[in-house]
């Protein structure tokens, strides 16, 4: 399976006791799933890390950013994809207007719907790993299996 992994799953994979964290860790550790995300993930999660660490936790901030970056390197657990910006924007706009997703969620689904099918072998399932219900529902409507 080729799967697009949303930030909502990636963050849970770093946690121990949160709802869905064990399942998220299993997805990232599964060698039968090729895992990809978009460039926005690094920006989205980095912003949340910095805000979480604002109360005098600069060391934790830097260590968390480092761990995230390590996973997005070529040898990391998740590869990063990019596509044609205009094509992705147009698809995201259509998704936002059809389903009312927020901008970032629509961009994730748009990139996934454009890029992931190109990486799949003939007949191979494509997946979308998200812990956001609305986003996952839209991805399923576009042919992605829930991961």
């Amino acid at each position, binding site marked *: *399976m*080729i799967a697009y992994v949303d*930030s*909502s799953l990636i*963050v*849970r994979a*770093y*946690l*121990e006791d*949160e709802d869905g964290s064990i399942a998220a860790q299993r997805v990232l550790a599964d*060698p*039968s*799933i*090729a*895992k*990809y995300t978009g*460039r926005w993930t*690094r920006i*989205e*999660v980095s912003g*949340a*890390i910095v*805000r*979480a*660490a604002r109360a005098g*936790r600069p*060391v*934790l*901030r830097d*260590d*968390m950013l*480092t*761990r*995230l*970056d*390590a996973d*997005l*390197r*070529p*040898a990391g657990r998740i*590869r*990063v*994809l*990019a*596509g044609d910006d205009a094509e992705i924007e147009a698809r995201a706009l259509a998704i936002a207007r059809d389903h009312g997703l*927020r901008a*970032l*969620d629509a961009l994730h689904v748009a990139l996934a719907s454009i*890029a992931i099918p*190109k*990486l*799949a072998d003939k007949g191979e399932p494509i997946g979308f790993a998200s812990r*956001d219900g609305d986003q996952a529902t839209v991805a399923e409507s576009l042919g992605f299996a829930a991961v």
Partner: protein
Amino acid sequence: MNAWVTDLLDVTVDADVAEDRQARADAKAAALGMLVVYDDIPEYDEETLRRGEEAWRELGPEVLRILNEDRSTGL
């Protein structure tokens, strides 16, 4: 095309590596020009990664709360 992508394309002709799902998909993504390789991320040692995992265990729930809040407010 950078060295890592070239190396990746080279190794995927190897029969053993061709069985690896991620490597085959990566080769296809690289050939399509869709694979992003960050030049600003070095290779970290195990101790650095361990500290990162500890930091996530401590402050990660707050990061998740912020992301969930962003989603609930439509940001």
